[in-house]
């Protein structure tokens, strides 16, 4: 169980560590522990060991507290047991030790508390059917001495106390997971206490029997005669009567050891009175100590099972196992942010159609099968003149051929004309186009307008997004006589300055 506490502390501390770091570290450990992958609990504990070795830590303070609590409870149990036995077996010579007292404290009371323990430990499935059982169980849990262990956190030094209390709070929050562990832990502590109690009581009784002369008798206000008492006492002695006959009080002994207030011990009977002790000691052993030892064994076993289950199903452990056993798959370097240098978007380009004051030359960079007549008509509308010449450039032509086209275009345009360049709107404006435009500008006389008209794929009108893209890109050329406008005259194709 200390391992569980340690694990919880470690996982809690881990939560603050950054995720990639944890992943790397745990995957490394996981690769080393690969053979244990089929046994999650063993792998988890091995992980804990690996971390401890790495940081050279011993058990956490909380685990030490768990051990300390058990030890403290045992010590307290021993003390209380010795004290009670001393009290019950007290003989100062005036009155014999009352067997009824011994039986009441060390047999019946023990049996009742064992019964209550069993009631408290009944699983929920059973208590569901009995009304009031649940409330009773809750009350019993409140009373269990095992809960003292929780109270002991008050005496721990400061940082350990915080850690311990954090753990208790954490366990309460994860109720379902830790319920089993908590119950069996409390039970284990309670039984440790009870076993210590009984051991001390037994030892004290034996010591008193050995080292002092005790006389036993029995006395009660109730009207009980010898046969009745024999009827109670002798069946009690049944478990050991076959092995140790002297531990079974005979009817004569019972008869002889009755006493009444005021006490008068018949001198003949006096030596017999000590003969109660085997019976009493065996009672204490069998009805007091033995059930407790059995219960302790059961509780320890169940606690271990609960701890294993808690480890196995703890959500943080699940994630730990995933971190350890799943290979780290990365499909890109997380650190690098993709570089996106956006094109300089400032820059202005005219978006209207200039009026043609001279010959118009069309340069077809688009190779969109356009009706020549359509283009002529549209140009007439847009710039007021029909094209003088239509040249083709770009595409699969060579750069030299483009240069020749530029020469011819310049020749056509002369001093007063303008150039219309048809481009594909859906293709992005590339350096080839801007290179061409730059060369064209160099070759043209000063101030000649160039209109770049993007053509759409369907019906000549370009998509507005594409048109804007061309305007933005060509705006960066800083050419004051460059226009980017659409040839068509649809409403949405009209571009206002």
């Amino acid at each position: 169980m200390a391992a569980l506490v340690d694990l919880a502390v470690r996982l809690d501390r881990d939560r603050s560590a950054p995720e990639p770091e944890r992943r790397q570290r745990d995957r490394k450990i996981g690769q080393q522990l690969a053979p244990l992958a089929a046994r999650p609990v063993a792998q988890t504990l091995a992980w804990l060991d690996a971390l401890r070795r790495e940081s050279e830590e011993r058990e956490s303070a909380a685990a030490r507290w768990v051990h300390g609590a058990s030890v403290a409870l045992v010590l307290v149990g021993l003390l209380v047991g010795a004290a009670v036995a001393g009290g019950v077996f007290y003989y100062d010579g005036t009155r014999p030790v009352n067997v009824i007292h011994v039986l009441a404290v060390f047999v019946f009371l023990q049996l009742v508390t064992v019964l209550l323990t069993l009631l408290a430990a009944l699983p929920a499935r059973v208590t569901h059917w009995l009304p009031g059982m649940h409330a009773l169980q809750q009350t019993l849990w409140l009373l269990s001495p095992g809960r003292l262990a929780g109270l002991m956190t008050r005496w721990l030094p400061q940082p350990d106390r915080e850690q311990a209390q954090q753990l208790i709070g954490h366990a309460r929050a994860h109720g379902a997971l830790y319920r089993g562990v908590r119950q069996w832990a409390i039970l284990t502590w309670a039984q440790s206490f009870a076993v210590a109690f009984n051991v001390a009581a037994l030892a004290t009784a034996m010591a008193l029997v050995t080292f002092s002369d005790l006389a036993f008798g029995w006395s009660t206000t109730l009207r009980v005669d010898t046969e009745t008492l024999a009827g109670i006492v002798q069946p009690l002695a049944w478990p050991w009567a076959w092995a140790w006959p002297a531990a079974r009080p005979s009817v004569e002994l019972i008869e002889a050891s009755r006493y009444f207030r005021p006490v008068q011990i018949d001198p003949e009977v006096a030596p017999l009175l000590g003969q109660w002790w085997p019976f009493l000691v065996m009672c204490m052993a069998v009805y007091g100590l033995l059930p407790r030892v059995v219960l302790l064994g059961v509780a320890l076993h169940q606690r271990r099972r609960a701890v294993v289950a808690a480890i196995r199903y703890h959500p943080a452990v699940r994630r730990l196992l995933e971190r350890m056993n799943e290979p780290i798959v990365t499909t890109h370097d997380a650190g690098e942010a993709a570089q996106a240098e956006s094109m300089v978007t400032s820059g202005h380009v005219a978006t209207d159609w200039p009026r043609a004051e001279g010959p118009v030359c069309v340069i077809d960079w688009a190779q969109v099968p356009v009706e020549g007549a359509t283009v002529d008509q549209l140009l007439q509308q847009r710039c007021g003149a029909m094209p003088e010449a239509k040249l083709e450039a770009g595409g699969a032509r060579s750069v030299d051929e483009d240069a020749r086209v530029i020469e011819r275009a310049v020749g056509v345009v002369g001093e007063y004309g303008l150039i219309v360049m048809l481009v594909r709107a859906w293709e992005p404006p590339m350096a080839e186009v801007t290179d061409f435009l730059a060369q064209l500008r160099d070759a043209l006389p000063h101030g000649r307008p160039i209109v770049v008209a993007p053509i759409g794929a369907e019906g000549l009108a370009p998509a507005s997004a594409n048109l804007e893209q061309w305007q933005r890109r060509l705006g960066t050329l800083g050419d004051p006589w460059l226009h980017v406008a659409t040839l068509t005259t649809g409403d949405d194709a009209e571009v206002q300055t």
Partner: protein
Amino acid sequence: MQPVSEQPLFAVVGHPNKGKSSIVATLARDDSIAIAADPGTTRTAQRFPMSVDGQTLYTLIDTPGFQRARRVLAWLEQHAESDADRPAAVERFVRAHRNTGEFPDEVELLTPIIEGAGILYVVDGSIPYGSEYKAEMEVLRWTGRPRMALINPIGQADHIDQWQSALDQHFNNVRIFNALTADFEKQMQILEAFSQLRESWREPLQRAVDALKRHRKQAQHQSAEAIADMLVDMMQLQVRETLDPDADPEPRRKPLEEKYKAQMRRLEQREREAVESAYQHFRIQRVEQDVELREDLFSERSWVLFGLSRWQLIAAGGATGGALGIGADAAAGGLTFGVFTTLGTAAGAGAAWWSAQKLPQARVLWHRVGGKTVQCGPVRNPNFPFVVLNRALRHHALVAGRSHAQRGELTLSETPGAAEQQRGALNMLSEAERKALSPHIRRIGRGDRLDAAQRAELVELLERVLAAQESGQGRAGDLQA
């Protein structure tokens, strides 16, 4: 020229448009790659290595597009001595222009190729083929590297056939791959296709595909866990406040309900984020309405002592009295015929009932012993977990099917009708799976806690649902195509 890289290395080249970066974003599962509308967004070559446990299995390289292909070709034709010299000519071109600034994009994209990368040539299948593409295809052929063409139909129009016949003349291997809509299965197929570029690349690519498939199963598992946790948490959610025994609960109703709704919302958000990051979507902008809570969840309860209600106290008192009575009967050797037990139970219960009357008024250290609790929730509508589950399944389907190249908002709209919602996502399950899932959901709906084994079963069932969603999507996708 360096030999072809031992490790799979792919340079994604083509015209400057968004097609290349979309493909890289999808295959590298990176939703941070800038995919802008303007061309020339990528100016430098970016590497995207895919590694498992630190070992790189393949690398994708996003490159800027060709800007001056014809000039490059012209230079190459001038400087190559023979056909066999062509790859060397390309290398000389790169070296000659490395720092001149004359051909920045071409140098960027050719450098990884001359260093050993294979070529993935990407074109947009939704725009018409043009003769200007010939130059860049020719330049790529000159490098002599293994190469493959991908037609990525970005827009609505379909010119794929045109492209197919144009590309077939320059490439042995031409495939259609829509980066925005390709589901996981198709992405794995395209990766496996890449292995055809070179024999020695087959094995590492196969290992990569296996690792990615396993990673995907892990994502399904993590999503299932997140959904299971959310269902349980949402059905058990309640917010409480303690008031004095005679305080009026009504003014606390509204603020308590708001608090409840806010926590519900947070639980759902947490699950949404967990699913999204499981599939490596870190930048999704989600648009979703809160889940509708139709019932009145406000209630109040009075209690008497230690949080025990009156009846609980009486039961405890009765049981204790009874136990003592049993003891007395036993001591009397059975002569009393259980009278003490009866009396004890009655006395205990009576004492508890009396004190239950008195205790609320009692004070211990100036605090009232009894009190009143007002609480909101938990939901007890048996339909509610189905509603929540359907929402979660719908979100998962959208996230799992979303390629990392998509940049739009993720909108989850409510479909009308609760009954429809209940049938909705669960329709995809087989009869047997639905039967197996229902009892778990109903158990959650009752507010019962799940023990560890039940939870593990639920997670497994949800995983199967999520996996079925995926293959169902694939089938639907095929029907569309």
